[in-house]
């Protein structure tokens, strides 16, 4: 369960978030959509504790992302904007490293790694070093290490960016499975079809402001537009120019 209230964040003169407020309930996929530079990544970064808001609060399961950082960190699994791997470590070692940082050890950890490798179909490269991994393989490792501690809240920044159709489908499937198990999932994307296809709730963000939020039918009612693309363009004020 994630709640954001009156969030402001500026980088020098650029206002990245302007009084942003939204919530993401458990058992629900919340998709944040917006043009490039709209503030999606900044919002997620505040949620996953690497940025501090100038004002306003963000809480994860009731824990404040600034004052209760460690509590938040152990309740979230994140595939952030930066998702580099260590070229000299194997896929398994990557997942194991993050598992240990979450306090997991021994056979329980190894079993969890095997389970994730099964779900994400990683067995073919699980013991290989990450140097030379394809984009899809990198993404799978990044997902697996984010989920190793079975977090309640899952934050994904452009989770399928650069993936082929089959890999994107697999990621979508995994996200939906996690939702069905009661997890709170927040992801951001600039691909409208993706957001429309898998989100239960959609948050439209533009120039740091939340333009609207709700289910897809709610947004269609609100704008009177027939499809999500027009909803988006109408909300971000780009319908006329498009």
């Amino acid at each position, binding site marked *: 369960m994630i709640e954001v209230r009156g969030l402001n964040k500026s980088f020098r003169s650029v206002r990245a978030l302007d009084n942003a407020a939204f919530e993401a309930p458990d058992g629900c996929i919340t998709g944040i959509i917006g043009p490039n530079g709209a503030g999606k990544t900044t919002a997620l970064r505040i949620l996953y*504790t690497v940025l*501090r808001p100038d004002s306003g609060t963000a809480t994860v399961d009731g824990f404040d992302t600034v004052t209760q950082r460690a509590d938040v960190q152990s309740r979230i699994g*994140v595939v952030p904007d*930066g*998702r580099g791997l*260590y070229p000299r470590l194997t896929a398994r070692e990557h997942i194991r*490293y993050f598992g240990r*940082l979450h306090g997991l050890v021994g056979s329980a950890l190894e079993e969890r790694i095997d389970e994730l490798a099964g779900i994400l179909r990683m067995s073919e490269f699980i013991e290989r070093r990450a140097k030379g991994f394809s984009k899809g393989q990198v993404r799978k490792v990044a997902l697996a290490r984010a989920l190793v501690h079975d977090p309640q809240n899952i934050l994904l920044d452009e989770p399928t960016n650069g993936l082929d159709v089959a890999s994107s489908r697999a990621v979508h499937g995994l996200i939906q499975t996690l939702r069905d198990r009661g997890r709170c999932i927040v992801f951001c994307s600039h691909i409208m079809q993706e957001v429309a296809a898998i989100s239960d709730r959609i948050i439209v963000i533009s120039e740091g402001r939340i333009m609207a939020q709700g289910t897809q039918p709610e947004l269609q009612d609100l704008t009177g537009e027939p499809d999500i693309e027009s909803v988006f363009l109408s909300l971000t004020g780009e319908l006329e120019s498009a």
Partner: protein
Amino acid sequence: MWRRILVVFIKEAVDNARDRRSLLVALIYPLMGPILLGLLVSAIVDVVTVQPKQKLVLPVSGMEHAPGLVSFLREHGVQVIAAPADPEKSVRDGEHEGILIIPAGYARQFSAEQPATLHVVVNSSRLPGLIAVNQILGVLGAFNQETWTERISARGVDLKVLQPLEIKHINVAAGKHIAEFLLFMVPPLFIFNLFMGGVYLAMDTTSGERERGSLEPLLVNPVARWGLMFGKYLAALLYTAVAVAVQLIAFALIFKLVETPELSFTSAMSPIVIIGILVTTLPLMMVAVGVQVIIATLTLSYKEAQTYLGLLPLVPAIPGMVMVFAPVHAQGWMMTIPIFSQTLLLGQFVRGEPIAMTNVLMSMSVSGLIAAGLLLVAARLYEREKLIFGN
């Protein structure tokens, strides 16, 4: 928290053990100094200490003019041989180091008790030539003295009257001086290596991590930022200590290898001395790694970090390099200056001089305090939001 710091430490140590550059810097670079010094020592040993022990081979031209002198030379252990046709060319070409020419007028001058002229052909631009001059003049001087002793006593004069000074030659083994001079070169090589050992690890785990994009996911884990930094710091410290230990052991082995009875380094690198040096310089290693982590955190990119950190080891080595030629006597106040104090103490260690415990403690505690300060700065830098973006 300490368990998780250990997790970071182990990961970085293992990860970098698979990196050829990190291993090169920690295991191979430290051998360069000792090998260089070893080559230098063995070259000098050959020239200075071995040759005087050999019998002086002296080509003599005009032997027939001075049978007395020739037999004197032979009695004094000189191997007299016939001189080549062109003595000067022969010496210039390095066939012989020195040649004695006895002119035809020698016999007449000598028996008339006039100064008898001799020519000694040498090439003093060569080190062996210089040594030959010394040896030839030495033995000729002895002949001179013997002759005048005979002549004076034949006239009934007490010899002591003519000898206002009795100079006794106390020969301090030449090898010892040379050994000491060479040992002065150990501290700068050591300091350079100390600031080099962990450098790749410090860069790889900080600017490298950011550049790879692996820093952001790492920061999301429930480990305090200072803990992440400290785990990386400890891994870099381990690599520094390994590099330092490898170099000290290499020095010990190479000194053993080039050692001769005249040129002894036995006291220089005993296991006790090596342990003493490691303990004494540990705070300096912590300072070095602290500086490396801070620079690697502040710089925008791996390349930029590489530029600064590549130059870094040279600067602290400067005092030691200067002291090779202008030795400094260690004093208490000097122990408050990091790098300088370790350079001085290290010199005392390897030259087998007595070491004041107060000096060691002073050096260690000042450097330890500075290392702690640097750690605090590094921890604060890790707290900054900018960390994930670069400066």
